[in-house]
Structure formats: structure tokens, C-alpha cells
């Protein structure tokens, strides 16, 4: 036993690394651990449920990915989908961002080439966690670029577990955002790098990053507006440099040309109002460059001032006239409703009910900020303070990114996602700087006594100098206490993140889980039951009408044609479905027949107490339907402005198609002990119309917990 430590220490000595190597080793191993952590923390849903696709939109992405694997890229690019938006159809290749599908198929092909017999579904399920892991690496390098490697490491750790990001990147959440956040952060990082170095290579890389982002998510508009804004700020603050000129021009021109290759984006970069800021800044850069050159040529300042005045006014005038002409002639399209609703949170509510009806488009509540950011919420201002203390091109960028994205996060819940990387980076600066200052304080005190001079590097100098000046008695203890406080907060953050991930963000929403009477887990798998029934037992060309929420799932899992789906591109079509659902049966049947519908599907939670069912969404159907067809009036369905389904409900409500389909034969059903039959558990009332008779539709299938009900449209009666 005694010899063992000696030999071990010998071994250590022979392996003894230099400090720099040690640091590298620690850094690499921390990064590796963070990389793995970011991946496995997103696997809760796979372990708890199964490897499956979540929610609504991912099912469309999965279906298109399957199509891409089976038919190849050219067929995918030219795909006209007959199974959705019947009878209009959808040009899929031209109306989606293909980045996600191409990425997944590429990973799939590589794995297949390496003889890993994986199924494309598994690749799709794990794409988001994989890209989240890659994002942590980018966050590290970004942090290193704007501050130092310590901040980079902290940023990587923070972003690995941040709930704001996890919410959209758990395993199975196969959505554009999963890869887009990686692309977004990568583009920003490479652009900042290009601005810092003035290197053409980096700015070329940022153009490609931008291209990937454009191919992956509509949120690229944020990049193409933030970067010009950032450039503008640099110009105004007098930080114009050749580096900036190279970085921006290369990135803008190449990025624009590359982005035009995506069919869904097309010529928007030169034609749409949302992209005009970038073009304006591009021309402004040229004016700046020109002026710089003139200034260089002209030695007379007075002459230059005059020239400057003339050039600037004429440039602005020409730009204004060009923009005005473009707008008037219709060459440049005005801003879209979605863009407006970002700038003005109340816009959607008044003008586009279809955007307002989506829960993730609501303005963010304070609680969800706290839920998604936790301690980052107050580390963020602290980080901003540090950034302002050490202003550079890079910190200006991150400050601008942070502030603008925080504003957007306040406007829409789903945009918390865009703000998350910025918040993590800025908070990482705060954490890293604080901890560094505190540890320097602890370590340098001993050295001060002995050597009298500090050897601390970088940012620690100021603090150690301060230490020399004032020797407060409890400084060391205070620093220790503060350090413990910081670690406590960070560990609370980690606990909170894990809890949020496991409790809130890891349910697939297609399978519902509840606790049974004995504490056992009860699974409601009704959605898949219904979709699989559709898939197996209806004619291949059956047309299914449902509210648009379920469109993607019906086409992906049920493999049947739908009238409307989650790609809400045609408001009138959706309004027609809304109108059919909110009309009386004999009026609705006309619409249903005109749409050639064979089956009508409704989601009903009255038996299980599942609250996000069609009855609770019904007012939106009325609103959207009424927005196009004024026959439908919202007050008809309300009693004194109150929405109810019991005896006191409005007569039109009690007899409209949606009500009838949901509550057909529900009046005979005992749902809860001690309650009358027909007691709706989702709304906690006894329903008002128990004697529902259907004339033109018949019940075709109801799932075991009644969550999905499917009705068959009867053929018209024979006329005699």
C-alpha cells in the first residue's frame, strides 16, 4: 500500500502537463461534458414515452422528410401535395424551408453509409438535440470572441440547459427552430468574427451560415434586419472601418444571392419591404466608402464638408425616391401582417385572428420569462453593464442582439427562443466576470503580501489594484460568501432547468398522460388511435375535414387528404371550415358537400377533462369564419358576452355543427360519479342539449376516451 502513491505520483510526473496544456485539457473536457449534457437533458421524452415526433408542425416536417428519403431531392423540390388543402393542393417544394429536412436526410444518409441501420424517424427525433449540442459549441466560441474563453464556457453551459431553448429542441420536437437557432448563432458568431478580423474567409462563412439559416427558418428576417441595424449603429458611433466594410458587403451580397436559391424566399431580398433595411445600409456603406475616399483625396476640410452635405442629401433623396417608386409601383411589397404584429403587439388581435388564435403568438407573461430564463433574467442586466463597461464592436453586437430580441420575446411567446442565446451569452459574461473577479480577489491576496505585484491576467488587474489600495478586513470572507452565493444560484438554475425540462417541455402532446386513482400512470393514446383508424379503415382518397390544428397530423399519421392544415396560407379556406363548424347542420352540409368531404373529425375532451379541445377553440372558428363570412356573428354564440355550453347557452351554440358533433350521444354518458349524465368534465357543466340528432352525418368512429370523434358524411338521399 505504501508504494502505491509513490509510483502513482511518478506516473503523474511523467505525464505532467504545462499549465497551458492543463487548461486546454480542462476546457476540452468541460466542452465535451457540456456537449453530452445538452444532448441527454433533451431525452426525457424519449425515456418517458418513446422515440416519437411531437406536437403538430413536426409531423409535417417528418412527412416531408420521409418523402425526401423515398423520392429524392428533385421530386421533393417539385412536390405538389394533393393530400392537403383539398381541393387547392399545396406546392410543398415552394412553400417550405427545406433546411431541416435536407439536414436530417443528410445525417440519415451518412449513418446509412456507415452501416448504421437506423430508421429515419430516429434521426428526425434526435436532430434537435444534436443541433442543440452543436449550439453549445458555437456559444462557447461566440463567448470567447466577445469576451474570453471563461465567458464562452459559462455561455455553453448556460445555453445547454436553458429552458427557453429546450422548449423547442427536446428529442422529437422536429421543427425548423431546432436547427435554426444553431444557424442563427453560427451566423452571428461568424459575422462578429469577420467584423473583428476583417477577413474575407469569415465573412464568406457568415454568408453560408446565413444561407443555411434562410433555408431552415423564416426567422432569418431577424438576421437580415439586425445586422444592418448593427452596422448602422457602428456607422453612427463612428466605428466605421474597412473590416466592417468587407464583412458586411461580402455577407450581404453573397448571402442575398444564396438566399435567392431557396424557392420559398425567392426574390424577396430585393422585393420585400422587410429586407429593404439591409439594402439601404448596403448603399449607405458605399456612400461612406466613397466619402472616405473623397476625404482622402481632398485635403480641404471646408470643401469636403460641402461635398458631404450634397452627397448625403442626394443619396438620401435618391434612396427615398427609389423606395417610394418601388412601393407605389408594387415592385416592393409592403410589410406582411406577421411583421406588423411583431412591431405592434395589438395588430394581430384586430386584423389577423388566425395569428392571434395561436397560443404561442400571444404576448409573453412575466411568469413565462421567469420560467424560461430563471436567474438569467437578472444576470442579463448585469451582463449588459459589463458589456457597456468594455465596449467593442463585438460587445455592441451582443448588446444589440440582446436588447432587440428581448423586445421581440416580449411581443410573442415563441420568440423567447430567439432571445435565449443572447441572454445566455450576456449572462455568461456577468457570471464569468463576477466569479473571475472574486477568485482573483481570493488568490491574489496571498501573493500581494509576498511579491507586492500582481500577475493576474486580463480583467483581473483592476480588481487586484483595488485590493492593494483598500484592505478591508472581511474582504476575503465576503468574496468566499459571494462565491458560494453564486454557486448556489447557479445550482438552483441547473435544478430549475432540469425540473422544467422534465415537467413542462417533455410531453409529446400527442400522447396524454395522467395520474390514475391509485397513482399509476394512465395514458390516453386517442389521437393515434383515431389517426390509425383513418389510415387503415377509410378509402384511400377520403377527404377529412377538421379544424386546421390537426391537419398535419391527419396527413402524416392518418395518411388521408385534409381540407385545411397548420400551414395557414389560405385564410378563406380556413374560414370556410370555421363557417361549416359554426353553422346549423343543414347549412353546414351544403359547405361540406361543396368541399367534397367524406369524414369530419372533432376533438372533444368532455369525458377526460382534456381542455384544449375543439369546444374551447370554437370561438376562434367563429371569429375566423366571421372574418370572411359576415353571416357568422360572434355574439350569436355568446350569452351576455359569456361563452357557455350548458342550459343557459345561446340557441345557435346549442345547435351548431361543432356542438352537435362533440356532444352526439354524450347525454347518455356518465362521466363522473355523483354527477348527472352528460356532465362535461373539461368545462365542469352539464351540457345544455342532450338530445342531439344528426341528419346528414353518422358516427363512424369514436376513440376509447372519446377524445377524437369521426363522423361519416352520408350520401344524399335518393330522390323519388
Amino acid at each position, binding site marked *: 500500500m505504501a508504494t502505491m502513491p509513490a509510483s502513482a505520483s511518478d506516473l503523474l510526473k511523467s505525464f505532467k502537463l504545462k499549465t497551458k496544456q492543463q487548461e486546454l485539457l480542462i476546457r476540452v473536457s468541460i466542452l465535451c461534458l457540456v456537449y453530452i449534457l445538452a444532448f441527454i437533458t433533451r431525452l426525457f421524452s424519449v425515456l418517458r*414515452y*418513446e422515440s*416519437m415526433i411531437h406536437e403538430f408542425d413536426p409531423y409535417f416536417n417528418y412527412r416531408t422528410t420521409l418523402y425526401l428519403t423515398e423520392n429524392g431531392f428533385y421530386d421533393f423540390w417539385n412536390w405538389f401535395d394533393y393530400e392537403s388543402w383539398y381541393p387547392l393542393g399545396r406546392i410543398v417544394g415552394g412553400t417550405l424551408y427545406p433546411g431541416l429536412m435536407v439536414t436530417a436526410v443528410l445525417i440519415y444518409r451518412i449513418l446509412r453509409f*456507415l*452501416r*448504421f*441501420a437506423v430508421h429515419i424517424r430516429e434521426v428526425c427525433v434526435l436532430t434537435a438535440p444534436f443541433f442543440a449540442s452543436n449550439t453549445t459549441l458555437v456559444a462557447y466560441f461566440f463567448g470567447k470572441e466577445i469576451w474570453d474563453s471563461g465567458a464562452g464556457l459559462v455561455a455553453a453551459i448556460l445555453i445547454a440547459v436553458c429552458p427557453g431553448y429546450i422548449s423547442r429542441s427536446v428529442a422529437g420536437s422536429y421543427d425548423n427552430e431546432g436547427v435554426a437557432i444553431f444557424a442563427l448563432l453560427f451566423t452571428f458568431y461568424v459575422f462578429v468574427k469577420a467584423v473583428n478580423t476583417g477577413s474575407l474567409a469569415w465573412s464568406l462563412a457568415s454568408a453560408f451560415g446565413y444561407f443555411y439559416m434562410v433555408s431552415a427558418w423564416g426567422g432569418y428576417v431577424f438576421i437580415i434586419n439586425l445586422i444592418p441595424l448593427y452596422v448602422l449603429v457602428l456607422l453612427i458611433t463612428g466605428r466605421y472601418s474597412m473590416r466592417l466594410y468587407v464583412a458586411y458587403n461580402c455577407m450581404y451580397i453573397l448571402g442575398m444571392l444564396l438566399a435567392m436559391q431557396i424557392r420559398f424566399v425567392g426574390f424577396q431580398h430585393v422585393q420585400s419591404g422587410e429586407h429593404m433595411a439591409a439594402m439601404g445600409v448596403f448603399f449607405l456603406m458605399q456612400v461612406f466608402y466613397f466619402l472616405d475616399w473623397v476625404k482622402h483625396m481632398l485635403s480641404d476640410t471646408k470643401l469636403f464638408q460641402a461635398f458631404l452635405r450634397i452627397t448625403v442629401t442626394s443619396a438620401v433623396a435618391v434612396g427615398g425616391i427609389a423606395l417610394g417608386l418601388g412601393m407605389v409601383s408594387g415592385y416592393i411589397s409592403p410589410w406582411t401582417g406577421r411583421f406588423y404584429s411583431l412591431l405592434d403587439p395589438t395588430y394581430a388581435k384586430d386584423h389577423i385572428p388566425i395569428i392571434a388564435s395561436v397560443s404561442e403568438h400571444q404576448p409573453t407573461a412575466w411568469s413565462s420569462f421567469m420560467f424560461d430564463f430563471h436567474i438569467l433574467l437578472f444576470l442579463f442586466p448585469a451582463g449588459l453593464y459589463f458589456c457597456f463597461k468594455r465596449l467593442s464592436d463585438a460587445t455592441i453586437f451582443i448588446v444589440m442582439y440582446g436588447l432587440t430580441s428581448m423586445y421581440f420575446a416580449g411581443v410573442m411567446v415563441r420568440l423567447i427562443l430567439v432571445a435565449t442565446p443572447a441572454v445566455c451569452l450576456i449572462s455568461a459574461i456577468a457570471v464569468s466576470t463576477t466569479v473571475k473577479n472574486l477568485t482573483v480577489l481570493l488568490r491574489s491576496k496571498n501573493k500581494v503580501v509576498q511579491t507586492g505585484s500582481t500577475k493576474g491576467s486580463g480583467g483581473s488587474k483592476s480588481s487586484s489594484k483595488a485590493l492593494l489600495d483598500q484592505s478591508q478586513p472581511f474582504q476575503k470572507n465576503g468574496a468566499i460568501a459571494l462565491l458560494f452565493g453564486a454557486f448556489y444560484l447557479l445550482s438552483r438554475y441547473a435544478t430549475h432547468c432540469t425540473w422544467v425540462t422534465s415537467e413542462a417541455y417533455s410531453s409529446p402532446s400527442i*400522447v396524454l398522460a395522467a395520474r390514475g386513482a391509485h397513482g399509476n400512470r394512465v*395514458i390516453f*393514446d386517442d389521437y*393515434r*388511435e383515431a*389517426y*390509425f*383508424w383513418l*389510415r*387503415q*379503415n377509410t378509402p384511400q382518397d377520403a377527404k377529412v375535414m377538421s379544424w386546421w390544428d390537426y391537419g398535419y397530423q391527419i396527413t402524416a*399519421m392518418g395518411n388521408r387528404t385534409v381540407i385545411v392544415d397548420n400551414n395557414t396560407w389560405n385564410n378563406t379556406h380556413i374560414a370556410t371550415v370555421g363557417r361549416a363548424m359554426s353553422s346549423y347542420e343543414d347549412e353546414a352540409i351544403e359547405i361540406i358537400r361543396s368541399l367534397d368531404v367524406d369524414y369530419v373529425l372533432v376533438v372533444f375532451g368532455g369525458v377526460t377533462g382534456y381542455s384544449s379541445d375543439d369546444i374551447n377553440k370554437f370561438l376562434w372558428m367563429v371569429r375566423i369564419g366571421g372574418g370572411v363570412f359576415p353571416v357568422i356573428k360572434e355574439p350569436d354564440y355568446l350569452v351576455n358576452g359569456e361563452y357557455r355550453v350548458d342550459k343557459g347557452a345561446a340557441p345557435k351554440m346549442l345547435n351548431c355543427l361543432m356542438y352537435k358533433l362533440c356532444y352526439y*350521444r354524450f347525454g*347518455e*354518458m356518465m362521466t363522473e360519479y355523483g354527477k348527472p349524465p352528460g356532465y362535461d368534465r373539461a368545462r365542469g357543466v352539464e351540457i345544455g342539449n342532450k338530445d342531439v340528432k344528426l341528419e346528414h352525418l*353518422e*358516427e*363512424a*368512429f*369514436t*376513440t*376509447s376516451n*372519446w377524445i377524437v370523434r369521426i363522423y361519416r358524411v352520408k350520401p344524399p338521399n335518393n330522390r323519388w
Partner: protein
Amino acid sequence: MEAPIRAREALGFILFSLLFSICRSSSLNHLLISNAERRIDLSSHIVKVFLTLKVENAGSTPTSEVLLSFPPTQADHLATVEALVTKGKRKKTTLVHLDVKPTELPDAPNDAKYFTIYLANPLKSGESTTIEVLYLLTHSQEPFPAEIAQSESQLVYYRDSALILSPYHIKQQATFVKTPSTKVESFTRVEPSNRAGTEIKYGPYEDHPPYSFSPILIHFENNSPFAVVEELVREVEISHWGNLQVTEQYTLVHAGARHKGVFSRVDYQSRPTLNGASSLRYLLARLPPRVHSVYYRDEIGNISSSHLRTDSRKSELEIEPRYPLFGGWKATFVIGYGLPLQDFLFETSDDRRYLNFTFGCPLLETVVDKLTVKVVLPEGSKDPSAVVPFPVEQHLETKYSYLDVVGRTVVVMEKKNLVPAHNSHFQVYYTFKSIFMLAEPLMLASAFFLFFVACVAYLHIDLSIRK
């Protein structure tokens, strides 16, 4: 009912007269059947027929071949024919299986199909023996009405002959038909015939010449679910690391009377016995013991409604489809499970290995229309050969799985029209050198090694152009 029976009698007569001449020329007709008893069990959708024949050699030469004949419509649905003979004296009797082979006769009347039973000992002149024959018929109950509503029960037709179709003269015969319930709508009377409880008795009939035929039609209630697997692909993958992975892909259909009109969940839940009586609610699969990692899923994900019960002798997997299957409804699903290799893989004395596994479908009371069994041998195995107790179509394929370079040999066996009686064992023999087991781990190890070497090299080599 009168007219068709007359017609059939006429047909029988024509048959008889037609065959008389053929039988004369045939060398087989020195056999005769002194007593025949037939029991037809209609209680499930698989028709089981037990035939007891007392065969007597009336000729002068000993013979060891006994012919069975079937009308062509039945022959198409015939899943299996087995013949047994009892041996030994009283109390110590044992049943001995006899070989049965399909036979083509050149001038078969009305396309009758034949099976030959080969007796173990030739039957000498004047001797007699008793042969027990069991045969199973699938798809032989025709739902009538063909479409029923949820609350109706399922009625079916069964067609057969009151007289046993045989190339031999039958001195005395009787047929007993067992129906699943006492509810019989109608049955063809061929006197003497009568019905008592769940049994209909035809006979005894005396002295019928060869190829006598008297069609009967029985219309009765049969609410047992007609579970038919249209296609089943079983893949058995051998890994010499100790696991046998079985994956079974089912296309299940309820082949009974088609469901029409409404499916009402209220009625189905509140009055399960009256509503959807013939619906298929669950299936039972009998799996080998020591089964592990069982899964049950379909194209869109896991199906949570299954229960596994295991004990040391067998495992039972109870599976519920996502929805109850009514007539004409379909469901596709996959069952997969792992098994310990040592239970199924053995070595022969000449250093070959063989897999010993069950052939048929593990689901109870189901008919499989088409079964494909694929045995995936480990990479590097050679000379595969399969031994199956009944005729199957065979060919070889190649499959690529994890980290395969040359691919794995797959022995594919196909058979149509299977019943649970086909769940006998088959063997696949092959040679395999254990050293090949190390190929894949070595490949992985060397890939990682190369990766680290590349990393080390990258860190130590300065690739910059400027110095």
C-alpha cells in the same frame, strides 16, 4: 330447399355413373371403407375435421397406400392434413403419425384433389386398419349476410357434403357437425339427419359407392372473431453475442361479416356482449419462455395496450389493437422480442450450427394467408440450408445491418395458408467461425484509434503557409 337438393342428387348420380367406369380401371379400388365417422368442428373460424376411417383390403394384393379425396373448393382452403394410426393393445395405445402427400391422379372426377396416406405396414388382403385423419380448413365459413351492423351477430354459411367424398366404397358412415352455439338458422336435411343442441347429425348412411356427394349448407351463428393475418413477415436475427432478435410484421384483418353503418362507442362500452359481439378485442400470442425486451408498435408509434405474462415454461403476450376490429377492418402492427440464444442455437457433431425455431404464427386461433420467415444469419456464415417439416418456397437474400461490410445471408421461406397447427419446429443449418464475431468490435476500435491518431497528428503538425 327441395329443388337444389334434387339437383344435387342428380349430380351425385351423374358423378357416380361417370366414376363407375374409372373406378373399374383403377388399381386402388380393392380397398373399401367399412366404417367412417366424421366430426366437423365449426366452433371457430378454422374448421377442424376429424375423420375416422376403418379401411379394409378386399383385394388380393397387399397395399400400403390409402387415398383421401377432396372437392376442389375445399382443397383450396385445406391448410393441413394429418393422418394417425393407433398402435398397441388396449390402454397402452400410442398414436403414430403417417406420411401424407398430395397426389395427382390422371383422371380425377370433377377435379377432385387427392392425398395419399402411406401406411407403415402394408395392409394385407382381408386385413383392416383404423386411420384417424385430421384436416383443417380455412376461409370456409362465408358470412351471410355479408354486412352487419354493430348490434347484430354474425351468421355464416358452411358448405360440405353429407356423404364423405372418397374414392372407395363406404359401407357405413356418419357425420357430426358441431356448431358454436345452438343458434342455427337452417341446415340441409339429408335423411336421416337431426339436430340436438349444438350438434347436427347426418347419417348413418349405408353402402355408398365411391365419389358419392350430397351437398349440404348450414347457416348458423358464429361470433368468434375471424382473425386473419393477411401477411406475416417473421425475421429471426441471430447474433452470436447471445441474442436472438425476432421481429414480426402483421397485417391483420377481421375476415368476418363486414361492418356497416355506425360505430357507436357508447353502445360498445355500455353493452359489450350485445354490441360488436363478433369484434376482435384482443389477441393472445404465445411466445417462448425467457423472452425479453418485447415491443408492440406500428408505423406511427408504440401501442400501449399490451400485457406480458411470463413464467418458466411459456410467455403470453396479450395485445389489443389500437381499436376493436370489426368485420373488414384492418390493423397493421409489429411485435418484436429478444430471446436467449442458447435456447435455440445448437451445434451438430460435424461442427455446424443450427437454429431450431418455430415456424408458424404465435397468435392463437388465427389464420395466416401468407407467411414469410426470414432467418438472418450472422455475417460471415456459410452454406445455409433449411429443414422444414412441410413444403415451403425457399431462397436466399442479403441484408445489411449495423456495421456490415459483406452483408448477412438471409434464408427466406415462404408458405401460404397457415393455421396454428403449423407451429412446428424448423432448422436452419450453417457454418460460422467464431473469429468473425470480433470483426465489428475491431472495426470500431480501429476507427476510434485512427480518429485519435488524426487528432494527435493535427495537434503536432503545423500546416500554416506562413512561417
